[in-house]
Each structure stands twice: as structure tokens, then as C-alpha cells.
């Protein structure tokens, strides 16, 4: 499913070179629930950007579903993100003033999918993400944090992506709501979705079946999580 071979990412700022990722290699199989954990500056965000096809590596190869991502151009990357990757962000990133349904169908814009089908698929994704039916036509800024993150998860699910990339999805939520959101991820994983979770909190990371520890641009430890807390 995901295969990284010797991924190196170097940021150049004038004469200063910062090595964000140093020769990172790993694989993630279909149906896995993986946490990538590391302190800030460890390179986990860079890794997420590369896994999410938002950024390209300086060297090394990244395969997603058999496509070599490092060889794609801008438009092909957009296409790949649309079809294979679902993002969930820390700050939800919903469109304000837009209804829940509109937010969810965002990535279907400009496609030739008829609006009826879009609506059906959005509703299905929202049900999977666990949002109550009564909220479907609410404006996104009328929702609570937990509800907003479920809308964001539904948005990530709409194209039935190969992987869901969640970047600190509980960072803006209280403990109780975080638990609900993490349960949602659990359930999605149980129904076969591959999930990659980026976090700096061990509590959150331990929801996954496998934890990859990143430090100073290198994989420090890659272990199966035996004491899953949910």
C-alpha cells in the first residue's frame, strides 16, 4: 500500500540546509492503523506532507498503491490526493458559512458527478463518520469541535480513499471529545480503512496498532502496539 524507500527531505534556506528527513524507509500495509509520533521538529509533519502527496522528497522513492508519487506533476498529484488520500487536520479546516453537506462534497466540485449522487455519497460518509442526521444541513460554524472534526472525517471519506491521513486530529479537542473522535477512527479501521495518524501525544498514538517513533528526521523505533487503549 505505502512504501517509502530512502526518503530524504532537505530544506534549503539560502546557504543553510536543514535535513528534515534522513533516509527514511518503511512500509504500511492495507488495513493498518499506524501512529507516527515524535516531538515538534522531528520531521513528522514533513513525513505527513510527503505521504499526503502535498510535498515531494529531495531523494528517495515513495509508492502509493503502486504509483511512484515522486514522478508525478502538480495535476497528477491533485488527482492522486483526490482519489487516494483523505486528510483530517488539527484545525478542522471547514468552510465557514457552508452547510455540513457542502463541506463534505468539496472534493467532488467540478467533477461530472450529478448533485444527487454527490448528496448521497456525502450523507453516507457523514453516517460513517458518526454525525447525527439532524446536523447535515447546519452551517459548519454552528457545530461543536467534535462535530466539526466528524464532518472533516466525512470529507476525508467521500472518495473512499486508500489511506486517511490525520494530522493531530485531537489537538484542538478536549479529552472527552478526543476520545469520541479516536473511537471513530477505530471503527473506520475496523471496517477496513487504512489510517495514518500523526501526533506528539503518546495517549493518542496508543490508539493505533503500530507506532512509528520519529526523531531528528530518522525512524527511532517502529513497533507493534500491544497495549491498545481502545
Amino acid at each position, binding site marked *: 500500500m505505502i512504501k517509502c524507500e530512502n526518503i530524504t527531505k532537505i530544506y534549503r534556506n539560502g546557504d543553510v540546509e536543514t535535513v528534515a528527513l534522513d533516509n527514511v524507509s518503511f512500509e504500511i500495509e492495507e488495513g493498518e492503523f499506524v501512529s507516527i509520533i515524535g516531538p515538534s521538529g522531528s520531521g513528522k509533519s514533513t513525513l505527513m*506532507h510527503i505521504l*499526503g502527496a*502535498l*510535498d515531494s522528497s529531495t531523494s528517495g522513492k515513495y509508492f502509493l498503491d503502486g504509483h511512484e508519487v515522486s514522478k508525478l506533476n*502538480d*495535476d497528477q498529484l*491533485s*488527482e*492522486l*490526493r*483526490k*482519489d487516494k*488520500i483523505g*486528510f483530517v*487536520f488539527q484545525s478542522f*479546516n471547514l*468552510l465557514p*458559512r*457552508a452547510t455540513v453537506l457542502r463541506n463534505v462534497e*468539496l*472534493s467532488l*466540485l*467540478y*467533477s*461530472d*458527478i*450529478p*448533485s444527487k449522487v454527490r448528496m448521497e455519497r456525502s450523507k453516507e460518509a457523514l453516517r460513517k463518520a458518526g454525525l447525527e442526521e439532524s446536523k447535515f444541513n447546519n452551517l459548519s460554524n454552528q457545530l461543536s469541535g467534535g462535530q466539526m472534526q466528524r464532518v472533516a472525517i466525512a*470529507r476525508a471519506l467521500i*472518495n473512499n480513499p486508500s489511506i486517511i491521513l490525520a494530522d493531530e486530529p485531537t489537538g484542538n479537542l478536549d479529552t472527552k471529545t478526543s476520545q469520541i473522535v479516536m473511537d471513530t477512527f477505530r471503527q473506520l479501521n475496523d471496517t477496513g480503512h487504512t489510517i495514518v495518524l500523526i501526533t506528539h501525544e503518546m495517549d493518542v498514538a496508543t490508539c493505533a496498532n503500530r507506532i512509528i517513533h520519529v526523531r531528528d528526521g530518522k525512524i527511532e523505533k517502529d513497533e507493534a502496539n500491544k497495549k491498545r487503549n481502545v
Partner: protein
Amino acid sequence: MFFTDILKEALWSITGNKVRSSLTILGIVIGIASVIALVAIGQGAQNQIASNIQAIGSNLIIVMPGSQRVGGISQGGGSAQSLTVDDATAIKSQISNVKAVAPSITKRAQITAKGNNTNTQVIGTNLDYPTVRNVAIDLGTFFNDQQIKSSAKVAVIGPTTRDDLFGTSANPVGQTIRISNNDFQVIGVTVAKGGSGFNNQDDVVYVPLTTAQHYISGNNNNYVNNISIAAANQAAMTTVQNQVSDLLLSRHKITDSTQADFSLMNQNDIIATASSITSTFTILLSSIAGISLLVGGIGIMNMMLTTVTERTREIGLRKAVGIKKIYINMQFLAEAVLLTFLGGFIGIIIGWIASLVLSKFVNITAQVSIPSILLAFGVSAAVGIIFGFYPARKASNLSPIEALRYE
């Protein structure tokens, strides 16, 4: 699907900040409305001037005396006494394709009747004058051959003169008016021709040419102020003009045509000159209006740039969920074009109303033409595309990572 999506998204974002959008649209509205109104008034003025000139006569050529020189000092065109009644007779008899020739003497005079008085133009002329100058009789008759031969003291007056002396719509036929201390009997009133100010073709008194020579101009020696010639048709005008020129040169024994003691004016030239003047004014006025359209366009660009900055995160999100660069570009461009289109549409309506209202005040029939509306629409779309291009490009070129991080 694609088109409705673009339109829906653009509308959604425009209605997101109604006050800002309306103010931006207002800039375009003012620009388009002023272009529409000013072009309409300009075209109205142009048509009105052309029709006023047409009313002077049809296929008309006017011969005027050259400038008189006193000790080497020019007294200005028309001052010389170089044209005579005989010249007019010669033109009529020797040149083909001439329908009518009317020599005339003009003089301003004080006219009194029944205690009212007015200062107006008295024209002494012959029977051809109504044909040459499109003068029609409303009441009574024009003077006849007999009255010309006998220098009868009869007068045909214009409707404005009639209104001044006898009151609006009165029938003055048979009444007496006093011109330069001589009593004249009014025998007719002409049909109104329009025109205003010092170019009023209705404020006039016509008397027989011979009468004018005897009693009004005070010269008895055959000189006339101008000769009006009607060519048989439009096509013959240039030929007739050249033949008249040659004939008069030989009659006046002048070999060098640059030394001619007369000048010729062709009605078509007058119309062309007048239209070129009015169209210059129209262009001038609409360029000033165009500047406000430019300012409106800069307003659009300003708003779009602000929007792009405000919506950086949203743009980042759109990119992250896989919307292609070109769609983001088109989305913002569509927003700018929609703003200018709305502005253009409202501007056309307001401009139309403004030109109707203005035409009531300035007494010009404004003409809103289809081409000027199409032009306004085209210009507003172009303004949207030109001024929306840079912000849209800026939006579509944002890096999704940077955009998502933007606070």
C-alpha cells in the same frame, strides 16, 4: 456540472461579504453607467445636429463672397461684395443638374408689430428659396413672381418670429409689421424647422429680393450675401460644385483659383465636420468615463487580492482535497468576472435611465444603442478578466502546505 459549480462557488463567495462586494460592484456600476449615458447623449447630439443640417436644405451648395481687403487687411469671409444676382442667374442657366438657385440678401433688423418688437434676420430672396432651403408654408402663401417684380412690401415670417410678434399660434396673415420704418404686409407663415439659439431657422422674415434691395439693405446694385444652389441629386453635388466654381472664376476674371473672391460650402462637408466635432466630444467624454471604469477595475483587483489573503487556508484545503490548480484559478477569475458582470448589468440599466433623464434636461434625444450596450458588457467582462487574472493566479499558485499553515 462544471459551469454550475463555478457559478455557485462564485456566488457563495460574493454573498459572503455583501457590503464589500456591493461597494466593489458600485465602482463598476458608476464606470459603465457613465460610459453608457455619455455615449448615448453624444450619439443623440450627433444625430440631432445632422438632422438640423439636413433641414437647411437638400443637396445644398452655398456660395459666399470672399473676404474684403481694405488696405491689405482682411475683413473676414463673406464681407466682400463680389456676388451678384447675375451670377445666380448665370449658374441657373449655364450649369446642368442644378434644380434651383436662390440668391439672397440677409440683414438683421428691428421689427415691430402691434406694440411688440423683435430683432431678427430678414432674408431677401427669390422664388427658388423654398425649394433650395426646404421651406414649407404653414399659413398663407410665399410671395410670387409678380410681387418680386414690383418690389411689393410683403413678408413671410417664421413661426418663432410670429410667436414673438403676434403671440403663440396666432394667425398673422393680413397683419402689418414694420421693418426699417417701412410697413410690410404679412402674407404667410412657414412651417417650423427646429434649431435653437442663434441657429434658429424659424426666427426669420422672408421678403422679395428686390424689396430687400430697395427698402432694407440700402444697396441697389445687385450684390447679394450668398447664393444657395440645390443640385439635382446627391451624386451631382461634387460636379455642380466644381462647375459653379469654374463659372464664377471666369465671370469674375480670376485665373488663379486660390485668389477666388468667393467660397463654396457643400452641405455634406458641413455634416461631416459637425459629426466629427460631436464624435470627438463623445470620445472625450467617454474616455473620462472610461477612467472611472479603470478605477472600478482596480477596486475589483483590490477586493480579490484581499479575498485571496483572507481565504488562504481555504485555498490550501481545496488544493489538499485534490482540486486542480486550473479550477482554483478559474474559480477566482469567475468571481471577479461575476462581480464586473453584475456591475455592468446594473450600470447599463442606470446609464439608460440616466441618459433618459439627462435628455429631458439638455433637450437632446439620447440614443442608447445596442453596440454601446454590447461594448459595455464586453468591457466589464474584460475588466473582470484583466483585474481578476493576477489575484486568481496568486491563489492557484499557493503551496497547499504554506496555505494550510497560514494563520
